[in-house]
């Protein structure tokens, strides 16, 4: 019987629009989660696919041991594509010339991600190849210059001879660092054995590259785990690199935006549920007076909620999925090589969000609604449904649960949740004070303003709640807006317009003025000239450093002997290595030559974190980059023994430096005091910006200064700019979504007061208030609310921005002057505008209609 009544009431209320507000709020919550999660996942996957291009694969296993074919077989059975890569340094010979090169030997399937472009001649219209075949070698253009050969000439590599098949035009996983890399030679991995370069003890980097489905990649990681040793490690995109840190920040931002979006959607659901309960009090009292028990009333309204929830969750899922598919389509069109992946996570997360909002936010109001006494029919008035402790507890729990589900990070969710809670408490206090202060303020004002302030004061608690949601919505929007702007501007500063895109290395003392002159002739400006000498770090406090690679080799030989003695196979050999490797205790050296420089002034983008920068009078000192200092376990005052060209000398560590490696400026691990280095023959390094239309100058330079190497970082800059543009767009899309969620919360909040306002307007109209007066009063009330909400939101946003900047995003602190007018201005315009839009039709109603509506 109750089901019959419930169904009839449900359809009628649906038709009357009674249930739309709650349906809308639930739908919004589900939509926000599905679309934000879906878009975030798409953006993340687009970014990670982009970043896969930087490592030419989805996943890389690096090893210093020869390839274990078992690992490739495992990957094959999982349906993954694979590629092999070996990297080593060696000398190549061409006629009388020789040159140290960085060799990359790859299989035909390389690259699994991104593009390899090989040109078969130096001509602009040369045929382009996308993969390498056996018996081919391709060279970096500057290597041709250094060896004084052309495409088609022969070079010697180990005991093999190769004809140069062409030049490397684009290499997806080219190193992003511009210094200290020998020029690249690309060859086929199957040709390496014949060169006889790989000998026991040779320093070779082996890379297993994999690409495919992310689930299969995870399975692979688990399955090959038992086969790995200390010499094997999975490589992820380097978080220290410019691209890595941009991605990292973007991911944090997206996560944060998603969490804040959920808070907003949850607020909308809470407001709608309370409003629904408030409006249905008298109906419940009536049906209870007519004989409905509390339990039956509970069943009737719970079934309404259930039906609305199912309906709204369905619609929310559909719209959310449409939005995220739209975003995927957009990313696909924009990026071209993006492979959209369907994920069910946004859908189940959205459904769960709807369910949680429906039960945890609405269960309490519905419970209380069913408990409304039948006696209220005689009292002729409803109770004011103030928030009670249970509603706060269940609502709070729901928000936290949603945040945790969404982020999968209980620490971040708890932290943000507590912060929101603290803000709400603070806002409540501030609102109470302000609304009380408004009373004496109103004394000398016009009557419309007086009425507005009286309205605000009279509904202190509901208004405080409204003020909190308004402030919260504005605050979250402001935070996202400013953080987005901040992140984008930081990234752009990293690669400012006119940043040096050409580096000149190997400039002699005599060539220095000629280079400056040539650049000046072409209206270009050279940067600072850094002297450079290659040297090795041999000792720290007279203790000789271990060579990391040779140490591994020693262990490997020992392990092999033991494994052979035990008659074990390949895996026994690997396990044995693991045990022996754990016994390392010696301080490990750097394992390669460093570019040393000497300067009297601290370079820009460098900060002293310990000790002091040496002055001109200081002798025999060295300033060390902090990460390297950590690796070498250095203390201030330690003595480092260097060797440059076979000549040893010692320097005392006088400072540690933090270096911004993202700056694309010349950076050095070790900077020595000038007294130490002046007797060594140095070459210089400089950088300058070359506009695209002047690229012909590079050819002139190559002809005039054949020994100077020109390194172009245009490709790197282009890649970084691409990523920045992409991430900025993603941030904008998400900001728009969060702003829309905030507006919807405001609408739900204003709608919740419509009925009460209708009655008030009816009374005021009956008392003879003119439309102009009522309009002014309504506008003044919303303007005051908006201003207050804007000011609160601004203050809190400034505080939180400072915390987020410094803690979460590692950005420098700065005050946001714009915030101080945008915040209050936005609050006033937005809330006033929305209030006006929502109440306009009430103000225009003729008095008799208004009266009838208010009394019915």
């Amino acid at each position, binding site marked *: 019987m109750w089901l019959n009544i419930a169904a009839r009431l449900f359809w009628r*209320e649906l038709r009357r629009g009674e249930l739309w507000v709650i349906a809308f709020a639930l739908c919004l919550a589900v939509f926000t989660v599905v679309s934000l999660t879906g878009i975030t996942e798409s953006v993340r996957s687009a970014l990670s696919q982009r970043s896969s291009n930087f490592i030419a694969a989805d996943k890389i296993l690096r090893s210093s041991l020869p390839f274990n074919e078992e690992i490739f077989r495992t990957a094959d059975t999982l349906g993954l594509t694979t590629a092999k890569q070996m990297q080593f340094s060696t000398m190549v010979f061409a006629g009388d010339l020789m040159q140290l090169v960085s060799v990359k030997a790859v299989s035909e399937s390389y690259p699994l991600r991104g593009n390899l472009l090989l040109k078969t001649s130096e001509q602009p219209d040369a045929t382009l190849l996308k993969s390498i075949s056996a018996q081919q070698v391709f060279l970096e253009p500057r290597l041709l210059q250094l060896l004084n050969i052309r495409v088609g000439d022969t070079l010697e590599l180990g005991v093999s001879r190769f004809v140069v098949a062409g030049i490397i035009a684009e290499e997806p996983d080219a190193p992003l660092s511009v210094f200290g890399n020998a020029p690249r030679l690309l060859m086929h991995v199957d040709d390496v054995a014949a060169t006889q370069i790989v000998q026991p003890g040779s320093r070779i980097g082996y890379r297993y590259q994999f690409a495919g489905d992310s689930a299969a990649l995870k399975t692979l990681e688990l399955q090959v785990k038992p086969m790995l040793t200390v010499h094997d490690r999975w490589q992820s995109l380097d978080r220290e690199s410019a691209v890595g840190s941009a991605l990292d920040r973007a991911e944090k931002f997206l996560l944060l935006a998603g969490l804040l979006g959920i808070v907003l959607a949850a607020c909308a659901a809470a407001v709608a549920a309370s409003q629904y309960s408030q409006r249905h009090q*008298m109906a419940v009292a009536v049906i209870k007076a007519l004989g409905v028990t509390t339990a039956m009333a509970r069943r009737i309204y719970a079934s309404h909620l259930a039906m609305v929830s199912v309906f709204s969750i369905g619609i929310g899922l559909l719209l959310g999925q449409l939005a995220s598919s739209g975003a995927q389509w957009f990313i696909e069109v924009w990026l071209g090589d993006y492979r959209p992946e369907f994920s069910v996570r946004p859908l189940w997360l959205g459904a769960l969000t709807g369910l949680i909002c429906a039960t945890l936010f609405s269960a309490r109001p519905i419970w209380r609604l069913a408990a409304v006494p039948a006696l209220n029919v*005689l009292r002729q008035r409803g109770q004011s449904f103030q928030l009670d402790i249970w509603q706060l507890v269940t609502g709070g729990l729901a928000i936290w649960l949603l945040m945790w589900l969404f982020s999968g990070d209980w620490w971040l969710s708890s932290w943000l949740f507590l912060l929101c809670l603290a803000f709400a408490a603070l806002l409540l206090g501030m609102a109470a004070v302000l609304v009380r202060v408004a009373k004496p303020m109103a004394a000398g004002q016009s009557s419309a303003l007086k009425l507005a302030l009286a309205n605000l004061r009279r509904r202190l608690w509901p208004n405080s709640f409204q003020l909190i949601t308004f402030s919260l919505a504005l605050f979250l929007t402001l935070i996202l807006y400013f953080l987005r702007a901040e992140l984008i501007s930081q990234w752009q500063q990293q690669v400012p317009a006119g940043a040096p895109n050409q580096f000149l290395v190997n400039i002699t003392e005599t060539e220095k003025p000629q280079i400056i002159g040539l650049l000046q002739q072409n209206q270009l400006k050279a940067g600072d000239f850094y002297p450079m000498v290659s040297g090795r770090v041999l000792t720290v406090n007279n203790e000789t450093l271990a060579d990391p690679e040779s140490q591994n080799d020693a262990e490997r030989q020992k392990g092999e002997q033991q494994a052979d003695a035990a008659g074990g196979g390949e895996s026994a050999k690997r396990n044995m290595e693991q045990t022996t490797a754990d016994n390392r205790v010696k301080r490990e050296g750097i394992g390669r030559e460093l570019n040393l420089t000497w300067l009297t002034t601290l370079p820009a983008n460098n900060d002293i974190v310990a000790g002091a920068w040496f002055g001109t009078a200081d002798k025999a000192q060295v300033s060390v980059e902090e990460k390297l200092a950590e690796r070498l376990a250095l203390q201030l005052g330690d003595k480092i023994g260097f060797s440059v060209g076979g000549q040893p000398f010692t320097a005392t560590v006088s400072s540690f430096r933090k270096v911004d490696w993202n700056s694309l400026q010349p950076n050095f691990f070790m900077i020595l005091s000038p007294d130490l280095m002046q007797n060594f023959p140095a070459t210089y390094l400089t950088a300058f910006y070359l506009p695209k239309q002047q690229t012909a100058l590079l050819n002139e330079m190559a002809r005039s200064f054949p020994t100077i190497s020109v390194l172009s970082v245009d490709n790197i800059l282009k890649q970084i700019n691409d990523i920045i543009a992409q991430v900025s767009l993603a941030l904008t899309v998400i900001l728009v979504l969060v702003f829309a969620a905030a507006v919807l919360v405001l609408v739900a909040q204003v709608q919740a007061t419509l009925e009460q306002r209708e009655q008030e307007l009816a009374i005021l109209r009956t008392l003879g208030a003119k439309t102009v007066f009522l309009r002014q009063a309504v506008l003044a009330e919303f303007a005051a609310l908006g201003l207050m909400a804007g000011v609160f939101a601004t203050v809190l946003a400034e505080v939180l921005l400072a915390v987020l900047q410094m803690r979460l995003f590692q950005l420098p602190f700065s005050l946001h002057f714009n915030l101080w007018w945008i915040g209050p201005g936005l609050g006033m315009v937005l809330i006033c505008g929305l209030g006006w839009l929502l109440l306009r039709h009430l103000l225009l109603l003729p008095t008799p209609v208004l009266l009838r509506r208010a009394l019915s």
Partner: protein
Amino acid sequence: MVKKTLMSLLPKIDIQAKALSKEVQLPDARLTILQQVNLTINSGETVAVVGASGSGKSTLLGILAGLDTASSGEVYLAGQPLHQLDDDARAQLRAREVGFVFQSFLLLPSLTALENVTLPAELAGIKDATARGRKLLADVGLTARADFYPSQLSGGEQQRVAIARAFITEPAILFADEPSANLDAATGAKIEDLLFALNEQQGTTLVLVTHNPQLAKRCQRQLNMHAGELSEQQPEVSDVA
């Protein structure tokens, strides 16, 4: 046998209150709303409770109808000890035995006139609710308005729907709280006529709370409520005649 015959000769009691008191705790005082009220209403009687605002009339009505509970004393409604029943049992008793007419009509805005009328019948599990509803709407002169929503009806029409709703379950007892107070004099008078006509037709016990002496006079008995105490007004000679 003799006892049974005697019992059938005694009037059937529909409502009985014994030493009924209601007190509420205010922040700084205890307020007595009803003081030792004793009352017996027989089946089929029409009783008006009159008194000034705040005298406790509505509180008494609430307790007698099982909408509220007393602080002390006993109340029997249709033979059931209301003071011993819990909230749900009282609701079920109301569904079976009680009808209401309220001052501000209190129709459910989302249901049509007909649906508002049939709601109590459905709650009481009556099969031919719709047919009964249509008949009652015809009785109150609203056949043409059956599918209108409350917001589309005038005040008088809304109260007529409320009266039809009150009678659909053929309740033993009807409680009316200021049924014509929100209406103009002419409409109010029509509503009162309708109420008394249906009451007479169904033989319902009527308990009416009102300010209006004229309305009160149409009842067989008039009880006066003053500062929580109830006294019965003796009918004037002319009234008896």
